[in-house]
C-alpha cells in the first residue's frame, strides 16, 4: 500500500460504519428535536399591536383584547396560562379573567367591561370560551386572528393602571413555550357617575399617550 493510499483510509471516516452512524445521529436529532416541535423551535413572535384604554370604577372588570397575530403561518397551539406584562411606572391591575373569543364575525373589543365582556352596540355579550387548554390556529391568511380577552381590575380611584400586554404560556407539539403579546391596556380608575369630568378626561388621555409611548418603544 502506498503512502498516498494509506492517507485516504482514516480509521473512522474510512470505516464502513461511518455513514450509517451519521444517519442514525440525524434520525435521533429529528425524532427528539424537530418532529415534536414541528417548524417551531423558538417561541412564536407575535405582532406588536395596539393599546386599548377604558375608564372604569374601582373594582370594575375592564376587558381588553390580545390578538394572536403572527406574520408567518403556524400549526395550532394550546393556550395554557398568561400573566400581565408591566408597563413602565404604571401599576399593574389584577388579571382576573382570561378567555378566547368564540368567533370573530362580530368583531372584537378594543376594550369593554364586565365578564363576559359586554358589547355596547348592538347590546349583548361577546361570545367567550375558556382560555385554558383551548387550541387556536395561527397565521390565518385573511380575517381576524384568534383573540384572547383578558379582564382586569384596578381598585384605587384616581389611579391609572396599565399593562404592556400578556406573557403567554402555550404548548406547541408537546413542548412548552413562553411568548409576549404586546397588546397593551390602560385601565383608568376614577369615581364618576356618567362621564369623566374634564380633569379626569385629561388624565386619561395623558395616560393613554404615555402608555402608547412605552408600549411602542
Amino acid at each position, binding site marked *: 500500500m502506498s503512502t498516498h493510499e494509506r492517507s485516504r483510509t482514516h480509521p473512522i471516516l474510512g470505516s464502513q460504519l461511518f455513514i450509517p452512524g451519521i444517519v442514525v445521529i440525524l434520525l435521533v436529532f429529528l425524532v427528539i428535536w424537530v418532529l415534536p416541535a414541528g417548524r417551531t423551535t423558538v417561541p412564536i413572535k407575535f*405582532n*406588536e*399591536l*395596539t*393599546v*386599548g*384604554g*377604558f*375608564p372604569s370604577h374601582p373594582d370594575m372588570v375592564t376587558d381588553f*383584547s390580545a*390578538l394572536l*397575530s403572527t406574520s408567518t403561518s403556524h400549526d395550532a397551539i394550546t393556550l395554557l396560562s398568561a400573566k400581565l406584562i408591566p408597563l413602565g411606572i404604571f401599576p399593574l391591575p389584577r388579571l382576573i379573567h382570561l378567555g378566547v373569543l368564540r368567533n*370573530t364575525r362580530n*368583531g*372584537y*373589543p*378594543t*376594550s*369593554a*367591561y364586565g365578564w363576559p365582556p359586554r*358589547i*355596547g*352596540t348592538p347590546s349583548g355579550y361577546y361570545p367567550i370560551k375558556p382560555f385554558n387548554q383551548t387550541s387556536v390556529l395561527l397565521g390565518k391568511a*385573511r*380575517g*381576524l*386572528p384568534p383573540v384572547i380577552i383578558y379582564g382586569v381590575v384596578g381598585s384605587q380611584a384616581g389611579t391609572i393602571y396599565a399593562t404592556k400586554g400578556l406573557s403567554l404560556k402555550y404548548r406547541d407539539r408537546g413542548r412548552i413555550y413562553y411568548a409576549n403579546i*404586546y*397588546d397593551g391596556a*390602560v385601565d383608568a380608575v376614577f369615581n364618576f357617575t356618567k*362621564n*369623566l369630568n374634564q380633569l379626569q378626561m385629561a388624565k*386619561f*388621555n395623558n395616560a*393613554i*399617550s404615555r402608555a*402608547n*409611548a412605552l*408600549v*411602542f*418603544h
Partner: protein
Amino acid sequence: MKLKFIKRFLNRSGLSVLISLLALTIGISPVQANAGASVTSTIEIDGTIPAALASGSEVIVLGVPSITNISQGDPITFPILSAEPAAGGSFSIAIPASTVNGLNPQSLTQNVIVELSSGIGSTEQMATVSSQGTVSNMNNSNAVSSHLVGPGAHSTSEVVKLARFPMVRRNITTSPGATIDSAETARNVVQSPNGCDGTLIAKSEHSSRIGELHVANTSGVTASYDYKNGATSQFDVGLSYDNGSTWNVAGGVQVSNTDSTGASVSEGPGFLQYIDSDFMYGEFSVQQSLFCLPSTFTEPYAAIGDAFPGPNQPSPNPYGNCLADPNGFAHIPVDGSYTTGNQSAEKYSSAATLFGFSFGDVTGYSTSVEITYHNQSAADTYVCGSNIPALSPILYNSPA
C-alpha cells in the same frame, strides 16, 4: 467659489500633473517644431450655452496661472481675461493672445477656465490654448476641434471650440420661510445613490403626504394623528443623467422627524383628509470624476416635524362600513380609546413633486406615528382596514 473650485479641481483630480504632462507633450513635438513660426494675435473661444443658462448669462474667461512657481500656501489668483454677456444658444468670446500668453511667458500653452453663469446657476470648464494653434480641452478632448484661422503660419486668429459644458450647478434657492441651519449646512454634500458626492444646488421646503385620517361622522368620535419625534418616512430618490429632463427612481432615503415636540392633528366627526408634513428637499449635483458620471439626484434631507391636514381627500372605506369589511373590525366602546401601534405603512406614489421628480413615500405607523381614536359618542364605533385593524396601513372608522 471659483478659487475653491479650481483648487479642488487641480488638487483632487491631479489635473495639474495632467496639464503639465500635456503641455510637455505638446511642447516637445509638433508645437515646438512650429514655435516661433506662427503669430496669433487673437484667441477666440466658442461654446454652446446650456439651455438652463440660455438667458441672462455671462461668459467669463479666467486665466490659470502656472503653478510651478507657486509654493504651498501661496494665494492663487485667477485673472479675468475677458467677460461679456452671453445669450441664446452659443457664444464666441475673443481674447488678445498677448493677454493669455502673459500668464506664463515661458510656456507654449496656457490654461484658461471658461465660466458661464446667470441667476439660475453656473458651469465651467477648463481648456488649454496655444498661440501655436494646439488646443486641448480638459473636459472632453474628443469633442474639441481646433484649428488656425488665417493664412498658414501667419494666422491672426486661433479658434477654440469648447466641448459641451458640464451640468449646470443651480444656485441655492430658499423657499419663503425656510432657513439654512447648521444641520442643513452639514448636509450640503451628500452621497448619491451611486455613492458619488453630490453638492446641494437647489433646495425647497415642500409638504409631503405622510398618512390619512378617517373619522366616523358620529358626534363624539374624535381621532388624532401623532407624528412624533423619531418618526421616519421613507422616500424615493430621483436620479437624472440629463440635467433633470428625465428622472428615475434610484433607491430610497429615510428621513426622521427630529423635532423634539412632534406634531399632532386632532379632528372630529366626518374628517376625511390626508395628513401632510413639511420636508426639505434638495437637488444635488454630481460632477464627473474617475468613477462618477455627471448626474443630478434629488431627495428630501430634513423633516420640519410638523403635521397638518393635506389639501386632498383620500378614498373612503371601500367596503362602505366596517361591519362589511372581510378583514374584520374592532369595537371601540363608549368612553373607550384605541391607539394603533405597529402597522405596516401606506405607500403614496406621488407624495410630492419637486425639481421635476415625483416622489413616492412611506411613513410607517411604527413607534412614533400613532393614530388614536376616542369614542365619546352614545354607541360603539368601529375601526377596520385592509388588514386586521391593528395591522392595516389605513384605518377606517364607521358607526356601523
